[in-house]
């Protein structure tokens, strides 16, 4: 087991972001963490990444506290994180320095798969920048990859390459959690889908099991969240 969460509660002031979340993450699995904006996806990923401490409940990541295994957990934040002056080569140098296990070969391969041009970050399009930031995270030698909206706001070509890059980075010992609201596009990538609604897990099932019953993940998503009234791509 890569991670185990029991009864996680997290509040921001009066807002309950997570209201008792149970979740297990296993090696070799790509999990889709799905739900509309504000359902608690980012908070949950940050709790697993050790960036937020829950108010209640237990989190075990790789057998210990999330804060003690930061190097083995790779987290892609939803918002841009690289400074504008950096080029691909400088991102590589920075990541090599900070993360001893950074896989330079993978990084260069991913830069190719994701077609990231060699220009300073500030000269990249939004899609190119997102792809560069993802390449750096996927090249970390981690056991658990937590990707917060890696497809959000990007063009179709970028989204397609990102799906391919996740498959390129996938291996049997690592687990992936991909938080997204672009359900239709990403659903063939998921082993398992976890639906988060108002801070609670309302569904946790193998994706093929849903399709076995004649419904796509998108169909079920629309049933569960249809009343929330947010668009599904």
């Amino acid at each position, binding site marked *: 087991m890569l991670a185990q969460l029991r009864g996680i509660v997290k509040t921001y002031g009066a807002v309950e972001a997570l209201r008792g979340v149970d979740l297990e993450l296993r090696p070799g699995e790509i999990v889709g963490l799905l739900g509309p904006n504000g359902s608690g996806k980012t908070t949950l990923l940050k709790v697993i990444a050790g960036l937020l401490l829950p108010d209640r409940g237990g989190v075990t990541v790789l057998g210990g506290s999330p804060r003690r295994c930061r190097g083995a957990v790779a987290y892609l934040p939803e918002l841009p994180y690289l400074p504008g002056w950096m080029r691909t080569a400088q991102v590589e140098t920075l990541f090599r320095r900070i993360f001893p296990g950074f896989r330079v070969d993978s990084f260069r391969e991913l830069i190719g798969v994701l077609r990231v041009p060699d220009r300073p970050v500030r000269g990249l399009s939004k899609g190119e920048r997102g792809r560069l930031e993802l390449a750096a995270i996927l090249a970390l030698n981690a056991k658990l990859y937590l990707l917060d909206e890696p497809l959000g706001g990007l063009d179709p070509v970028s989204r397609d390459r990102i799906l391919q890059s996740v498959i390129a980075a*996938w291996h049997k010992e690592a687990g992936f959690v991909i938080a997204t609201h672009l359900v239709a596009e990403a659903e063939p990538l998921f082993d398992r889908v976890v639906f988060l609604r108002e801070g609670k897990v309302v569904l946790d099932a193998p*994706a*093929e099991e849903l399709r076995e019953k004649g419904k*796509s993940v*998108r169909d079920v998503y629309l049933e569960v969240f249809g009343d929330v009234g947010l668009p599904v791509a």
Partner: protein
Amino acid sequence: MKLDPSRGPIYLQLAQEITRWIARGDLQPGDRLPPVRELAKRFRVNPNTVVQVYGELERQGITHTQRGRGTFVREDVEVAALRRALLQEAAASFLEEARALGLTLEEAMAALQEVVHARPTEGDR
């Protein structure tokens, strides 16, 4: 081919697609199937799903897996039988559509004939 997640499990759709490659001769008996990750990338599907696809094809007696070497189309695979099975499936959905439209078998056959005459080169193939 485009996968349609609302039409049943993806592994079955992909297994059928590979069967179609064999039926069409794109893959021959004895040929090696693409490595798991390559096929996963091509269809943008989960690699575990491809593992399941290869398991399903093996169960159906179409492929066999050699440890460390890959998955191969069996030498004794009956290509003609695969072709017939795929065509029967297409025929069944054709017939289903005709029935849903309230047409008789004769009317359905007549429609097929008309298509053949309208597109003779494809009909002769």
